[in-house]
Structure formats: C-alpha cells, structure tokens
C-alpha cells in the first residue's frame, strides 16, 4: 500500500465516492486482460474540478493515477501495475451538448457509446466508431484506446471522430485541445496525441465528437470459400477496387466450428466465410457496391452467396459472427479464451497469409487459435484458446505471441489495430516502435514529469508480459 490519504481523497470527491476495501481494490485491479494488480484506492469524481484536485493531490506525492472507464480493455491498460489511485470516470456521464447545426456533440468521458447513439438517433445521426463493446465502453476509454469496430473501414476509428477535448494534466491544469470545427491547422495536433495515449499523458474530462447521418439503406452479403487463400484474394481485390464498403468480416474454419458447436447455426464446413456490407442514402448506390463485392467473391470461387437489405435477415446472416466470442469461450473443456496477440493489422494483400500463419503457429505451440476480423480495415483478430491453469501453456502462448508479431512486422503490419497496447502487447509494440520509444519517453516526461499517469504501460511496460503482473488465473506448476 502506498502513502495515500483516503481521507484527503474523500474530502475531494465526497466520502461516498472513495473506497479502499480490499474487495473493491481486487475488483478494480482487473480488466478484460490476463493481468491483475492491486490499486491503493478507488475514487469516483463527478466534476472536472474534482479530477483537477485529485491530480493536484497525487502529483507532488508521486502517487500513480489510473483513469478507468468500463475497464473493458483487453491488454491491461487499466490494470494498476504500480498501484495508486484508480480514477473511475463512469459517473462523469453527461451529454453536455448536441449541436445539430454545427454537427458535433460534447460529452463527459463516462458517457457510454450506445447511450450517446441512443441520444443521437432521434436526430437521424450517429457517432460511428462502434467497437464491439459499445454497450458498455465509455467515450473516454474509447479515445484513450483509439478504439474502432466493424464499420471503421468506412467511418474510421475513434481518432477520426474526435474534434477536440478537455484534458486535465498531471499537475492538475486543465487544457482545451482541438476545435469544434471539422478541420484545424493550428500547429501541433496535441488532441491527436491524446488519442490512444492510454491515460499516460492526461485525463480526458470532456470530448467534442463529430457525428454523421444514419444511412437509409444497408445491405449485407455473405460468401463461403473452400480455401482460405481464395477468401484472402477476394479481400485484396475488394479493398483495391475502389468499392465504398461499410464492413468486410472474415471467419476462419476454427471460428465457424466454434459457432456451430455452441449454437448449431449450421454454418457450412468451409475454410472461410466473408461477410460484406455497403450502406448509403441511395439504394442504387448501395446496390452497385454490394453487387461488385458479390462478383469479386464469385470470381474467387466464393459460393452460397446471399444478400439482404432486411434488418431481420441481416441479423440472421450476421448472427454467427455476433456469437463468435461466446462460442470461442466454450470451444474446448478446460480451455479459456484469452486476448493476447488479438488485434494486429496487416496489409490487405497479406490477410490470407496471416490467417494461415496463425494456424501454423498455433499448431506448433500447442494452443488453439482462430483467425477472424475486420478485414476491411486490415484488422485480424485472433484468440488464443488455452488451459490457463497450466504453467507450460503460458510458455506456449508466449512463444505463439512472439511468432505472430514477428510475422506481422515482417509483412509491414502493426501490433494493434484497435485494442491498444497496455501490458500484454508492450513487448511486441516496443520491437515495432523501437526507433521512437525514446521520443515517446521524452513526450511522457514533458507532460508528466513525475510519471504518475498510468505508469508502467506502453513503452515503459515490462518486457515479459507473462510475468509483468500477477496473472488473473491460478497457474498450477505441474506442467502440461
């Protein structure tokens, strides 16, 4: 336990908004990653001023402060590796302004993505990044992570929707970044620097986001492939042919088998399924795009092609993909679904090769891995299915992760497309960004000289992710 005065923090946020019971600390020491560490106290500010006062208290005392939204990060971004204060921002959840004339919305960081979209829907507009966790993910967390989702191929990642923000710095100063306009050319784009900074540079306390019209028409298609390579070629051609698409999703045979095992959806026993979608305001335009994608799939030996504009039918077609995550959790008795090397991005032309490589790496390292993802944005998801109670499996997983990222770098890909770096992916991130690590450290030092903002993450995270923190599982030492 560090030298933190819970009493002082209670005076800042109110007694009912600070906790230091061991059970609460244990809960806040975990997220959706494999990591676990104990914070010293959890506080729940409701105002910018409270956030400033917390920082003014923590900074001179060198107490780490870890901002936390839903705690749904998969790489340990919110795990307090050095202890300290968890700043739970979920109660700062007001939508401050919906400006239809100038097409932006101002929100507090704890606003949940889906809640924002529910508020925008009556105006026929939406905030588009849509990560899979949008039902609980907070805007602050999405920005800190630079999240994205299935439709990012058309609408971009969170960084493409952020116009500006208010940030509380390590010393408690409040700064305004960005603008309310669509374009800005006023020197350093520090708001962009904050996007994806994982709470290491400042606490985002307000965001100005742009929104876009809800498309009137949306058409989803599906194609099956006997060869993964054929699906890969289809992806490459779709993405290089100038088609304006809103989604392109791949499921490999492990993913298909997992869904069939769990849900009996009767997906065909093929090597790959592609799901593609176009949307827009004019049906004719959407028709053109989906038909072109269908033709390309056919050309690459795609079969079982279906198209639908109907919302219910689209839900049916997409249900297999939607149910993939729970299905993977039940793939094999005693195995769990871990997010380790889980969201790399590779050039479109390398997607099929990446998927094949994932299977090879899994085989030689005694784990099960699946390949699926948002091919439209070059994002390949994998999950490592393993027995987390066996020590040797962690060594297997470590080797598999290492080999995956070696391949990713060899083809010009990048470590993370949307889940962020945190702790789990830091070793690969450091190898990928080795030339800029010192620059990152210099930036961090300039903005947070006492290194209190989410320390021990990104470039400062340990080199061995397995031993970086206690693992959330109980690992038995008797071997495989």
């Amino acid at each position, binding site marked *: 336990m560090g030298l933190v005065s819970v009493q002082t923090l209670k005076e800042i946020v109110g007694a009912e908004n600070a906790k230091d019971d061991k059970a609460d600390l244990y809960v806040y020491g*975990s997220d*959706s990653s494999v990591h676990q560490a104990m914070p010293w106290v959890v506080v729940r500010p409701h105002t910018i001023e409270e956030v400033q006062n917390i920082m003014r208290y923590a900074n001179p005392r060198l107490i780490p402060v870890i901002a936390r939204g839903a705690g749904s990060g998969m790489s340990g971004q919110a795990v307090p590796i050095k202890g300290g204060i968890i700043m739970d921002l979920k109660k700062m959840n007001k939508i401050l302004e919906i400006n239809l004339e100038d097409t932006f919305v101002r929100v507090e960081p704890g606003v949940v993505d889906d809640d924002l979209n529910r508020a925008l829907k009556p105006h026929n507009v939406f905030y588009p990044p849509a990560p899979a966790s949008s039902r609980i993910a907070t805007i602050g967390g999405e920005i800190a992570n630079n999240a994205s989702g299935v439709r990012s191929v058309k609408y971009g990642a969170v960084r493409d929707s952020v116009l500006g923000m208010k940030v509380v710095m390590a010393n408690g100063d409040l700064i305004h970044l960005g603008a309310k306009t669509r374009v800005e050319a006023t020197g350093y784009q520090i708001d962009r620097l904050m996007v994806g900074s994982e709470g290491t540079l400042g606490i985002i306390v307000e965001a100005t986001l742009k929104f876009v019209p809800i498309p009137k028409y949306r058409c989803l298609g599906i194609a099956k492939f006997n060869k993964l390579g054929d699906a890969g070629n289809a992806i490459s051609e779709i993405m290089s042919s100038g088609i304006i698409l809103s989604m392109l999703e791949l499921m490999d045979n492990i993913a298909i088998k997992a869904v069939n095992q769990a849900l009996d959806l009767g997906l065909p026993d093929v090597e790959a399924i592609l799901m593609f979608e176009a949307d827009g305001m004019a049906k004719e335009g959407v028709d053109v795009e989906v038909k072109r994608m269908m033709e390309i799939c056919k050309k690459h030996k795609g079969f079982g092609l279906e198209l639908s504009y109907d919302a219910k039918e689209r839900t049916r077609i997409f249900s297999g993909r939607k149910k993939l995550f729970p299905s993977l959790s*039940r793939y094999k008795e005693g195995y769990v*679904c871990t997010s380790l090397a889980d969201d790399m991005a590779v050039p479109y032309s390398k997607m099929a090769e990446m998927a094949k490589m994932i299977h090879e790496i899994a085989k030689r390292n005694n784990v099960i891995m699946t390949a699926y993802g948002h091919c439209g944005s070059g994002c390949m998801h994998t999950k490592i299915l393993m027995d987390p*109670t066996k020590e040797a499996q962690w060594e297997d997983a470590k080797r598999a992760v290492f080999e995956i990222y070696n391949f990713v770098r060899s083809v010009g890909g990048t470590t993370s497309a949307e889940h962020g770096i945190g702790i789990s992916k830091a070793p690969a991130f450091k190898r990928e960004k080795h030339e800029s690590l010192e620059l990152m450290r210099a930036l961090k030092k300039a903005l947070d000289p006492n290194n209190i903002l989410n320390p021990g993450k990104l470039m400062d995270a340990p080199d061995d992710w397995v031993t970086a923190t206690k693992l959330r599982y109980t690992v038995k030492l008797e071997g495989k």
Partner: protein
Amino acid sequence: MKVKYIKDWENELNICIRCAYCFEGCPVFKELGWEIDGARGKLIVVYGLLTGELEPSEYIAEKLFQCTFCRDCVERCSADISVPDIMGAIRADLFDAGYSYDSHKELTKKIENSGNIFGNELKVPVFEGDKAVLLGCRLVERKEDSEKYLTILEKLGVKTKTFNESCCGMPFAVLGDKKGFKTQQDKFIETLPDKNEEFICACTTCVFFIRAKYPDLKAKYIIDEIVERLPDYKGKLKKLNIKVTYHDPCNVARGMDMVDEPRMLLKEIGAELIEMPTNGKQAECCGGGGGLLVSDDKLAEKLAEKRVEQAIKTGAEILTTLCPTCEFNLKNAVEKLGGKIEVKNLLDLLYESMM
C-alpha cells in the same frame, strides 16, 4: 474461508472473460455504480474467495447478497456464464462460514415452522378436481386471488385440485442454506399429490425454480396451460378497454423465454399495451428477486420505484405483471410514490375479462 460449493465453478470463473457486458442492464450496478456491484465485479470477488486472495467479510457478504438473480447478466454475457448459479454456490459457502443475516434466518424459520414465507397457517382454497395446482406461498396468502386464478383454469376446462402445499424451498437456496433447502425439499415433495404427475404452477418464481432444482418433477406454468386452452374460449372474453404497461418478470422473460404470450393475452382481453423503454428480455428487474427483499429491502424498494417511475411515464393506468413477488414489490413502490398507477396481476385482468 473454507470453500466447498464454489469449487465446482472454478472453470466457469476462468471462462468469464471479464468483458463487463454485464454492466449494461444490471439493476444493482445501475443503482449503486461501483464495479463490485455488477456481475463481473461479484464474480471477481468470488474468484478471490476461491483462491484465498480475499477473506470473507461483512462487506463482501453484503455485496454478494445484493443480487436479484434477474439473469440480465446471463442474457448479455459474452461467455454464457450462469451468474445466479455461481451466486447460489458462494452464498452457500458464506452461509457455512456464518455469514447469514438475521432477516434471512427469520424468513427460513417461518418456512420451517409453517411451510410458507409468512409464518402463518394459511388456508388453501379447496378445489377437488383431478389436476393438481400449486399456488405458491404468495398466492396462497391471497386466498381471494387464488380462487380467481383457479376459476380461470376451471372456466377453461381444467378440473383443478388444490392441496395443503409447502414452500418449494427457493428462499433457502438463494440465501445459501443448503441443509435447510434439503429438508424443505423433502417436505415440498411430500405434500405433492403425486410426484410423478404433471401439476400446474401458478407462481412464476416457483415454476422456474422447480424446473431448475427438481428435474424429476413436471411443473407446468399456468400461462402455458391458459394459452393452450384459450382458443376455445376466445369469443367469451370481454374487452376491458384499458391502457396497461406490462412488467416482464425476470423468471418469465429471461428464465422461461416467455415474452410473447403475456402480450397476446393482453391483446385478447382488449388491453392497449404501452411498453416501457426496457421490456421483454431486456426488461429491468423490479428488485424483488434473489432474496434482496430480505437482504437489503431499501435497495429492493429503490429498484421497484425506478421501475414504477418508468411505468408511470408510459401514461398507462395499470401496471400489470405475472409474478406475485414483483407485484408485491411494485405495489409497495406505487404506494410510496403516491399511487399514480395501479398494479394488477395479469391473471386478475384475465379473470375480469372472463366475468
């Protein structure tokens, strides 16, 4: 803490990917807002107790008893984890470790002494047909209403038979008293006229619980029986011309996957249904389940008030539901909020339509 029952759930606790999707609809999390209040937080605490990283405390017990077993988390779970089963197991370990409230003991004592949750000698209305009907404690206590519900079945052609029933034991199970549950289970089975014969169950909580904990018994939900028989009676129903909103009980919508049938019944009796923003499988819990009424009645009351406020906003004159416990909890909340809406069991409305 010596753990016994939770050991069986270690694999499930590992399978939980801690995605936090369970935050979305958890009534307790929405009300209290700390992560320990949501299902993920509770499961993490349970894991800590299992591994010994956490020791039990009054605070932990308070948090683990603040769950309504509403299954909203199960509905939204990324990994299909049965949170109520895990809560049941850890509560049993907590019970064995001495973490049981006086209010819990008071309730279970009443059942032990009288066979029902009220601790009084209750008279079951006498119907002497051939089809056994289990009313459940809450309905037995409302003798007049019980007679109405039995009359509904009679009018639909069921020759009902009541019996001197004893509690199904659900309170023991959700409060962690395994031994007490076993004893009550035996008493419950003893009172059934024929344990091999199908019986109709009028209480939503009882029927859901019996199906889960008494796999050999054949409990048929009263709504299933009514829906099957109603086509022959349709022309005789009086249109009530009322505006209602319907509260989906957790055990009905999420537990038994029954969303359309109650709405169909409302249509048949000429009730205009105005839905609350959350309904069907996404319906918010009223706070009456999981023993919350005896573990934290203030919280149960707050959750019910929230639900009633949603109902009032619809502009409906009647808030109808099917679960007698929901009905009880919602009625109390309506009274507290100044009686701006009337709470009625859907079976009462159906009875009115038949008369």
